[in-house]
């Protein structure tokens, strides 16, 4: 499995573990509504798993973005910063938030796989 999910409705794709891609899920963007602003983490800074790494704001609310795993942020999505609505229109693709160098594979493996995340969504 290369894409895993968090209880905070983020996804992380680890095809390249030196630059694993992180974003919010379809459910997250739907719950937030129209995204109008994102605050992205600092490139080059290391964050602990669970640390607040950014903010996503819709017209009606602001939500924190948490680090799904520990690691150094290696890139942020400047296109998303310029056009926050990408988080709505393509949350699993062009609306990604940042890339992180994953060093603790165990943290990744502890996240939810797609069936587990689907099961979580069914309880909401």
């Amino acid at each position: 499995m290369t894409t895993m999910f968090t209880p905070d409705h983020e996804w992380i794709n680890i095809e390249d573990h030196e630059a694993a891609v992180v974003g919010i899920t379809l459910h997250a963007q739907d719950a937030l509504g129209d995204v109008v602003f994102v605050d992205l983490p600092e490139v080059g800074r290391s964050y602990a798993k669970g640390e607040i790494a950014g903010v996503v704001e819709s017209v009606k609310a602001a939500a924190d973005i948490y680090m799904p795993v520990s690691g150094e942020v290696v890139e942020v999505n400047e296109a998303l910063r310029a056009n926050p609505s990408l988080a709505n229109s393509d949350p699993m693709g062009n609306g990604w938030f940042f890339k992180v160098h994953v060093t603790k594979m165990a943290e990744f493996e502890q996240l939810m796989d797609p069936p587990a995340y689907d099961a979580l969504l069914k309880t909401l």
Partner: protein
Amino acid sequence: MSADLLKTPLHALHLELGAKMMAFAGYDMPVNYPGGILAEHRHCRDFASLFDVSHMGQLQLRGDDAAHALETLVPVDVVDLPVGKQRYALFTNASGGILDDLMITRRADHLFLVVNAACKEADTRHLHTHIGHRCHIVPLPDRALLALQGPQAVTALSRLNADVAGLTFMTGGDFKLVDVDCLVTRSGYTGEDGFEISVPASHAEALARALLRQPEVKPAGLGARDTLRLEAGLCLYGHDINETTTPVEAGLTWAIQKVRRPGGARAGGYPGAAAIERQLASGPTIKRVGLTGLERIPVREGAQIFDAQGRKLGHVTSGTLGPTVFEPVAMAYLAANHAIAHHEVYADVRGKRLPMRVAPMPFTPHRYHR
């Protein structure tokens, strides 16, 4: 949905239209429909939007003494309000704070009041306690309230009854719509031309469907209603005004007519008159202002406001990214000496100080049909 939430007569229609629902003032209400808040907001500014505001309280005050009695609770001229005219009013408390804001329409034989959903029970008790012996207080739980707002609202509603086009801003009367008598006023909460329609609950869905069949009209939820009213500079009770803010601090002195001010024929005589008159004479120490953000980051309710030296000036009571103006807009209470147009202040958002400017309201021009 929580089982104890109340439903408006349009609840099933909201679900059919795919609305996202949320609890608001004890009701299960639509926040937005599948198009989203931004699209609904823009549609209302350009065309016409239908809002269900049936959660709001509607009631009548009946009896010859009703207008004089009501004047003992509001700093507003009700006695001289002509039949067919509507007026904004405020229930005040003994310290001059605001218990609720409301709309009063003078009918031929009664006063028609619309109050906030979250306050309606308290308001009704307040009326019974203070003026129940002077007039009949008749709640109207069997009526729905629809708002049709936007520059094309008049075109759409005129197809159901051409006579509504004769109304001007803040007037109202009885009009037959979908074969039932409705009370239609030309007013609203978006800054646009539009109507609020009090309709028997039994006919609410038929009326809503008839309006939604008009090509100009789309449904809009409470999310867009909030961003529209904020851009229009209109207060939201419980946020921008409450029992600790006075009409003077809130910049609502225009709602206190001359006849109710010192020197007027019916000056004072409402709760908190002394405190309000003192502030009218010497000016308040804090004032509600508009703020626009110089960076495109929303500044929301609760954000603290500082001056350039880091001294606290006040706090934000409502804020978002204004979908029409496309910049952050907010309302805040500031120390009066900083409540000066174009004054630069700083909002604390997640530990960062964001520059904002005191701005005249409304943020988008009102387009009422006067």
